[in-house]
């Protein structure tokens, strides 16, 4: 297949972004981002979650306006203030969550916003022939009268692509398009993307899957923490190099820990299969053990089944198949609910403390008892003793250095680090046998990170079995006694920190199972 390299002489690049800045409050989502995309190429953008890829594309599609910076499309400077203006300059976008109206037919969805007249019938005839044309050119066959909600996900995505194409898009942005596809469907999509590029369309593919980048793109740009760190020609790079760039060198944290004193197997997970609410498969046949006195690190790019795994272990969601046993006790049948898991010593620091781990509108003292609200220590019988929970919280605040030391302050008013310490204190002080930890240092300042890490080590030394789920490789590397990596809902490998490195883990995270380096 012919690959168009760099800018063809005399042709302006399809897209040139210069010095794009975008802030959301305190968060700098994009800082001074430059990006050039050659016309007629497939250009990949990789980066971890939160690296700023989606924000950048939303700016390009007019969902947000950049605080600073310029956008050139085919050499002309443009201002894109709304999706309408993006469509007008020939940009089409396939969102990760489809922008489809499920009860409507394919033709209605495609026509929405491009109806071609006040009466549908007129534009509809034209649209049908346009669809037929596209079916012929790109093999995008679809029944225009099918109801979108009845179609499989792969075909729904096809509708999204058709929506962009019939509007005359010559730049197509796809945001994590394979997240919802089967491998077969993904393969078909890649063929389509190459065809589109061959016909002169420009394709931007946002993904965190390195194998996709290698398979389909001409060029690849890497984003990290809101910045564009590299733009490379795909043929001249390797997954290992990309993984390196994606993960980057974080501040190295010095965590001193002695050798693990391993006890017996505490938690045993066997052949676990989890489907989400839409019954798509999130975790596929996962098995592992955690021993007392061990930190098992679970690495992976966010969205590869770790969240579902954590919630299943905590009793929040029910797995479809498989078993979870704690010291030989079958937790799925004998302690199915979060409350029963807690009673059995399976405690949980959730990934999203704002939505799960705390109630932002509650006082610190009230958040400090979330999940333990029925505990006798906090009130006799049906009563809840404010004094008891205040005293308890004051004590924990001292122990965990939570600032400000104000048990009645609203939880939302605490900094991220102090909020996390509230969760940490609450779970640790209730004597876990097994502690499930999700993203313990996300949005947490450096001082608190060190504190949290030390606490986790101390807990491990006290014989607790800890499952640490994190997207921060440094954290995984410095805390874990053993590491497993998940990608696409399966465990792609198991390592120990001594026998692996970031690059090796990055490859496993990308689903490349051959041992590198």
């Amino acid at each position, binding site marked *: 297949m012919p690959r168009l390299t760099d800018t063809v002489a005399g042709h302006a690049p399809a897209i040139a972004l210069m010095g794009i800045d975008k802030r959301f409050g305190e968060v700098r989502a994009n800082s001074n981002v430059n990006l050039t995309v050659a016309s007629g190429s497939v250009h990949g953008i990789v980066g971890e979650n939160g690296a700023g890829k989606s924000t950048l594309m939303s700016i390009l599609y007019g969902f947000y306006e950049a605080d600073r910076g310029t956008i050139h499309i085919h050499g002309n400077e443009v201002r894109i203030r709304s999706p309408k203006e993006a469509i007008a300059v020939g940009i089409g976008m396939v969102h990760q969550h489809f922008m489809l109206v499920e009860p409507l037919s394919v033709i209605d969805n495609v026509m929405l916003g491009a109806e071609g007249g006040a009466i549908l019938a007129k534009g509809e005839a034209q649209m049908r022939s346009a669809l037929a044309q596209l079916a012929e050119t790109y093999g995008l066959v679809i029944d225009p009268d099918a109801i979108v909600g009845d179609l499989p996900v792969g075909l729904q995505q096809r509708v999204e692509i058709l929506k962009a194409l019939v509007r005359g898009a010559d730049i197509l942005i796809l945001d994590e398009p394979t997240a919802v596809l089967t491998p077969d469907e993904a393969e078909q999509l890649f063929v389509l993307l190459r065809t589109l590029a061959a016909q002169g369309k420009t394709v931007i593919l946002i993904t965190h899957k390195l194998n996709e980048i290698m398979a389909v793109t001409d060029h690849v740009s890497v984003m990290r923490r809101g910045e564009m760190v590299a733009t490379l020609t795909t043929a001249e790079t390797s997954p290992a190099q990309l993984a390196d760039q994606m993960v980057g060198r974080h501040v190295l944290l010095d965590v001193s820990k002695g050798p693990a004193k391993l006890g017996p197997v505490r938690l045993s997970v066997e052949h676990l299969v989890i489907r989400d609410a839409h019954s798509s498969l999130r975790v596929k046949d996962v098995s592992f053990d955690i021993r007392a006195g061990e930190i098992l690190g679970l690495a992976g790019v966010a969205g590869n089944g770790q969240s579902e795994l954590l919630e299943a272990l905590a009793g929040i969601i029910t797995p479809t198949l498989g078993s979870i046993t704690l010291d030989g006790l079958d937790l799925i049948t004998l302690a199915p609910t979060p409350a029963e898991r*807690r009673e059995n010593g399976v405690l949980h620091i959730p990934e999203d403390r704002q939505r799960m781990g705390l109630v*932002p509108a509650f006082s610190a003292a009230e958040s400090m008892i979330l999940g333990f609200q029925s505990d006798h220590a906090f009130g006799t019988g049906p009563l809840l003793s404010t004094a008891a929970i205040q005293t308890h919280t004051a004590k924990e605040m001292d122990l965990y250095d939570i600032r400000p030391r104000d048990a009645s302050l609203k939880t939302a008013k605490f900094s991220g680090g102090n909020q996390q310490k509230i969760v940490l204190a609450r779970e640790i002080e209730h004597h876990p046998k097994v502690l499930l930890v999700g993203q313990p240092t996300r949005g947490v300042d450096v001082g608190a990170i060190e504190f949290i890490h030390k606490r986790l080590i101390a807990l491990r030394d006290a014989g607790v079995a800890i499952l640490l789920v994190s997207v921060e490789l440094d954290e995984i590397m410095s805390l874990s006694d053993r590491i497993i990596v998940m990608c696409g809902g399966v465990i792609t490998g198991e390592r120990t920190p001594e026998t692996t490195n970031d690059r090796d883990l990055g490859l496993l995270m990308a689903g490349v199972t051959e041992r590198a380096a």
Partner: protein
Amino acid sequence: MSTPIELPKWADVSLVPILAVIVAFLVAGLVVLGIGENPVKATVLLIQGALGSGEGIGYTLYYATNFIFTGLAVAIAFHAGLFNIGGEGQATMGGLGAALICLNLDFLPWYIVLPLAILGAMAMGALWAFIPGYLQVKRGSHVVITAIMFNFLAATLVVYLLVNVIGKPGSMSPETRVFAASAHLPYMHEALAYFGIKIPKSPLNFSFVLALLASAFVWITVWHTKLGYAIRTVGHSPTAATYAGISIGRITLITMAMSGALAGMLAVNEILGVQGRLLLEFSSGYGFIGIAVALMGRAHPVGIILASILFGMLYQGGTELSFEMPRVTRDMIVAISGLVILFAGALDGLIRRPVAGVFARFLKSGA
């Protein structure tokens, strides 16, 4: 809301609702002006009517009793993130519950029949709220729409029963016979006279004490029990509730039942306290005004008592006002309630935003 509007707590619980009420009154004042009356004079007459005499105060508190019950009913549901629009129907059914006990058991002494009648009112009110809650939890139908339908169902059911089953034989008007004296809650002027305290005669009865007890009960339940903690967790963050092992369905059912029981207690004031028989439409919109009361009182019992007294004043003062100024009828109060619901509820941001702006500027200049 995309960006929560941050305010100091005291401003949130007092300043914002007070401003909402002021705006509502200003609009109402314009209406009074529009129908050719003097709003200032109307206000003076209203306050005199409500508080100018012992009898007026008695009436004010009697009306306030109704609002406390329905306001608490709406408020406790708010805490669980539920909107109980069915107070009217629950109160109607509460009346039926009380009446069924009284009609059948009022030969018994008061200390048996009255508690039973009160429980009957609470149980029927609770049932009428529990069913919409159950249908939401188990069948996925929206509690608001079901509750609206249940308002009408309660009304038609009670009409049917009064006309065909429990109505006074030989009477043309759809109402039951008058209950025996043992099934009457004592009036406050009677009760206090027993202790040698003389107050003017008014419909104010022992229900007012029950309303204060109910307020205390709601306050304790919501903020000082494990159940209340679960209710508030569900209301603020269903995801956190799930994490904490709190069953959202169970809390929905319990909260709806409590809410309905409180609304049902409206019947205790009206039927057991004043009318002494079941008749049609005794709930006369108190259930809906409870929404205004709860919004204004920021769903806190103290706020609700204060808001109820305000609405009690409006009702009583409004009645007096309509004698003095026949053009300003008591319908004014319904309109004011609507305005309060609008400004303290649906258009909350309209008041909150400027207040937050003033605070932000104030803090900046202060720093």
